[in-house]
């Protein structure tokens, strides 16, 4: 035995480690779906409805089919012989939804026919040559009007276009009658309140706009009866399950691959019609097929997010104590329910407790079909909507009472000693310590200084406002009881010959940097260099099981699975190491990983290198009694609860008096996502979230006209935040670990999106408060602001 002579390895968890993903991405060497080429590959183009609502009278495909280079033209009705209605992932009732419309179209962009051709140029030409005649029906555009008796309806069996209705309040809902057991406490709270604010607020429809549009390549091999699908998806394992079901195959006959994926933000959770169509047509034409979405199609057909209308009432005592909340929410879910459509708005009500002790709540939710693109998750998925409603309302109460927005929040916080904390909506917040986070934000922002700066600016005639929000969100989805696909995650850890480590994760990243953070965790776990570790993901042929990346779950659930698998692999390495240490009596329990060696704790002279133990594991002569050769372990991690990160955001805006243009001058974000594996990556996640949350507050909105025609179907009209629109964000953190997983990490992917939106709108309202403005609808378009400056009131 020799004393370890290798260099001491620094601990990497908590360090700003440069990403291991980057070399390929910065050199143009990554492989996204559109970069995949297979021999004999054909290309798909979709003919899509240009009307919002109508019955298909006829489809003439003859000109398209006659074009040179066209392999097949198929209508929705013909395709229905090969593909049934698409599955959804929620337990709510849903109308049939075919990949390609069979008889009726319900939104602009809904596919009605498909072309298979030699290249994408010919495919486009042919799709344009398809003639479709419709009997147009009245478009259902306004979700409130959609519920009127005289409205046209989208789906048979869904009267007044209502998809889902839910209600809870007071002391809960009687499960037998679905009626509130005793709702009187809510009414009493409002009757006894010193102040009640009531506000109708729209959390407007947004387009997720991952920079990579969707795309799919499908290859069905008839001889093997085996299907491979490459797709820009957040969850290849769910894709495998659903595409297998749709194709009448077993999961053993399908491999789904998420190659490099250019952003998801929730819109690549859903498994879309185009993915099923590609699979079915590959089988039909006996060739690999590719479809790549263009941006216009993305605006028309990739799921939208948000679009919740809230009627919010908040009651409080004159000292600022909040005494009750009533929320009536109408979700405009668009034309169909896709994978998680109906579930997303339910998260809104669940999270509307916010960070406060709310004695009583009444929550009503109605989800309504309209002739628009279906909605599903978009970064935050239900939480930004709820926290926006709540944080706007709390701010309005503060304004009514002339209280500091920080102090009204402090007064109503769930105290640190009440965690775990059960909310009115039935959630249990894992951990929290809100006051230090608020204090830190106030300190970083220099809150009093900001107020003074605002007042000084006002004295000069400028229009300046400051705003604050405090959010709590839910991350780390599962557990399985609340995630229809299962809420666990899977990981595998193999120690290879030579002491290198290959790990797999079902949490398939698309920008989150798991290849780096997961390697950091394994490097520390085994005390080996980062370079000795490879993290594989995104391929069901390689990663045995998995759920995917959404709901800020990859670290809290996927990371926990990784650590669990690493623990098992480590145990086996220690057993082999102990068996190798024949000259000492060493028990595996005494061994630790240290600087590339496995050694007796506190006795580095008794050690073996990680590499020699790995080599021994694969040529185990002699094989220790009771052991199998090799070190390849796997683990599922099922979280017992969600995690509940929180944070405080503060902003300052200035509005141009002449034009109404709003400039965001400052944004301070102090977030608490529990323990941090890589601060560089966490900061990046927060920055991106902030930009999207600010985008919602200031710029973005999907708009339809009264005929259901999209007005914002390109980047020419849909305002995306650009670099010059944003200030330098000032970030800080507090750390309140979660007890739910061994890492203490809560998740951070969506945090920035949730806190920033109400924070910026609160600042804008503060800016215009001297004009008598009490609420401003999003986005803060210049004209809207200009009108308020000139007319006052609300927008």
């Amino acid at each position, binding site marked *: 035995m020799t004393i370890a002579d290798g260099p001491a390895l620094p601990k990497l968890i908590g360090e700003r480690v440069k990403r291991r993903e980057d070399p390929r991405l910065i050199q143009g060497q990554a492989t996204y779906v559109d970069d995949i080429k297979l021999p004999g590959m054909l290309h798909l183009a979709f003919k899509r409805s240009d009307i919002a609502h109508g019955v298909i009278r006829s489809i003439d495909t003859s000109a398209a089919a006659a074009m040179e280079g066209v392999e097949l033209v198929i209508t929705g009705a013909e395709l229905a012989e090969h593909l049934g209605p698409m599955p959804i992932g929620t337990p709510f009732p849903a109308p049939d939804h075919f990949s390609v419309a069979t008889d009726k179209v319900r939104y602009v962009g809904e596919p009605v026919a498909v072309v298979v051709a030699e290249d994408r140029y010919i495919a486009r030409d042919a799709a344009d040559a398809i003639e479709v005649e419709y009997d147009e029906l009245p478009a259902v555009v306004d979700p409130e009007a959609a519920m009127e008796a005289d409205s046209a309806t989208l789906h048979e069996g869904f009267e007044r276009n209502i998809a889902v209705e839910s209600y809870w309040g007071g002391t809960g809902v009687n499960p037998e009658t679905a009626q509130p057991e005793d709702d009187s406490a809510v009414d009493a709270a409002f009757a006894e309140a010193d102040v009640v604010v009531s506000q109708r607020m729209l959390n407007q429809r947004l387009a997720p706009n991952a920079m990579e549009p969707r795309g799919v390549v499908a290859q069905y091999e008839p001889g093997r009866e085996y299907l491979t699908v490459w797709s820009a998806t957040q969850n290849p394992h769910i894709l495998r399950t659903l595409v297998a079901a749709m194709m009448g195959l077993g999961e053993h006959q399908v491999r789904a691959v998420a190659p490099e994926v250019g952003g998801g933000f929730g819109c690549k959770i859903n498994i879309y019609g185009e993915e099923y169509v590609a699979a079915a047509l590959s089988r039909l034409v006996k060739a690999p097929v590719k479809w790549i979405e263009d*941006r216009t199609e993305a605006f028309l057909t990739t799921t939208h997010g948000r679009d919740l209308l809230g009627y919010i009432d908040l009651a409080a005592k004159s000292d600022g104590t909040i005494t009750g909340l009533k929320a009536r929410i109408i979700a405009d879910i668009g034309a169909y329910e896709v994978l998680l459509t109906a579930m997303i708005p339910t998260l809104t009500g669940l999270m509307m407790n916010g960070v406060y002790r709310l004695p009583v709540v009444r929550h009503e939710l109605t989800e309504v079909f309209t002739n628009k693109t279906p909605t599903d998750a978009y970064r935050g998925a239900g939480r930004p909507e709820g926290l926006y409603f709540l944080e706007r309302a709390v701010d309005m109460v503060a304004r009514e009472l002339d209280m500091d927005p920080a102090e009204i929040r402090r007064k109503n916080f769930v105290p640190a000693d009440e965690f775990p904390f059960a909310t009115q909506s039935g959630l249990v917040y894992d951990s929290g310590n809100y006051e230090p986070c608020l204090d830190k934000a106030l300190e970083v922002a220099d809150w009093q200084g900001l107020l003074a700066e605002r007042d000084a600016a006002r004295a000069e005639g400028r229009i300046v406002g400051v705003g604050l929000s405090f959010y709590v969100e839910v991350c780390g989805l599962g557990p399985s009881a609340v995630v229809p696909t299962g809420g666990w995650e899977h990981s595998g850890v193999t120690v290879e010959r030579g002491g290198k480590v290959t790990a797999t994760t079902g949490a398939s990243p698309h920008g989150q940097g798991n290849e780096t953070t997961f390697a950091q965790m394994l490097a520390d776990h085994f005390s080996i260099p980062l370079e000795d570790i490879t993290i594989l993901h995104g391929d069901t042929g390689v990663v045995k099981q998995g759920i995917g990346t959404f709901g800020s779950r990859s670290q809290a659930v996927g990371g926990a699975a990784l650590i669990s698998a690493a623990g098992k692999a480590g145990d086996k390495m220690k057993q082999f190491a102990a068996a190798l240490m024949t000259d000492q009596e060493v028990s595996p329990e005494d061994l630790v990983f240290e600087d590339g060696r496995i050694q007796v704790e506190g006795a580095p002279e008794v050690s073996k290198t990680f590499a020699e133990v790995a080599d021994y594991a694969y040529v185990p002569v002699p094989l220790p009694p009771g052991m199998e050769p090799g070190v390849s372990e796997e683990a599922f991690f099922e979280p017992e609860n969600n995690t509940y990160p929180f944070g405080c955001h503060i902003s300052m805006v200035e509005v141009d008096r002449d034009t109404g243009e709003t400039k965001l001058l400052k944004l301070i974000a102090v977030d608490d996502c529990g323990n941090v594996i890589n601060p560089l990556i966490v900061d990046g996640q927060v920055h991106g979230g902030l930009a999207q949350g600010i985008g919602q507050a200031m*710029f973005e909105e999907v708009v339809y006209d009264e005929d259901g025609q999209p007005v914002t179907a390109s980047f020419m*009209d849909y305002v995306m935040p650009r670099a010059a629109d944003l200030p330098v964000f000032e970030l800080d953190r507090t750390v309140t670990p979660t007890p739910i997983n061994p890492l203490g990490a809560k998740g951070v992917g969506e945090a920035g999106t949730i806190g920033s939106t109400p924070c910026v709108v609160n600042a804008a309202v503060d800016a215009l408060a001297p004009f008598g403005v009490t609420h401003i609808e999003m986005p803060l*378009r210049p004209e809207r602001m200009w009108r308020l400056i000139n007319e006052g009131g609300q927008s």
Partner: protein
Amino acid sequence: MIPTAFEYRRAGSVAEALSLLQEGGPEAKLLAGGHSLIPMMKQRLAEPGLLIDIGGLDELRGIQEDGGEIAIGAAMTHAEIAASDLLRAQAPIVAETAANIGDAQVRNRGTIGGSLAHADPGADLPAVMVALDATIALLGPNGERKVQAEDFFQDILTVDLAEDEIVTGVCFQACRSAAYAKLEQRASKFALVGVAAALSLDGGTCSSARVAVTGASSHAQRLSGVEGALAGASLPDGAASAASGAGDALDFVNEDLHGSEEYRRAMTAVFARRAIEAAAGRS
């Protein structure tokens, strides 16, 4: 997004381009930077059968000054115009406007000739050319024709340019006391409203002025009421009053998601004032 098929010819000279235009008839379109045409072709809003590439023609390039008159070749890119020392010194409004069109990549490819010929209602340069009383030089089978900018822009995407004519350049008198101010449509970066003001100043008094608006209406046009009010006004103090009615005088005003008619009219006054103040500040 894929354009429909077309024939492509690269013209070796303006004369060749003209004869190709004649051969091609209504199917033919000229292509220089392509930053107006190609996006429309990709969306299949334009489906020309023949594209005649004039982007590389030396005859259409150059920025010269001769006796106080500045000429810019049609194929000059916005980036080249923005970087021109000559323009920065003698007609800074043109360089500055070009420097704020779209984004860097668009400015590297887009040309002044293309911008003027396409006449997007939100394009910046048309207003500047009208304010400078620029002359647009056109070449057709019957020789050269010169059109004043205010007559050139006729309606939405419509200019005084025959199918067989080419915009070869623009010329205008050097003018330092001119400025352009715009409210940007944040998504497209076109002007929601943009106003160009060119002033003749006598000390702090405006002797005459030309003021033009883009974005607000179907096409770039003069704001003659503002011009009249500016005559004899003392600046910059009189700018607000002179500009105040700017928007009200417009016959037709665009309206969309980004700005109603009322807002655009109001912004026309705001940006007229800003342009006048900036121009007056230049003297």
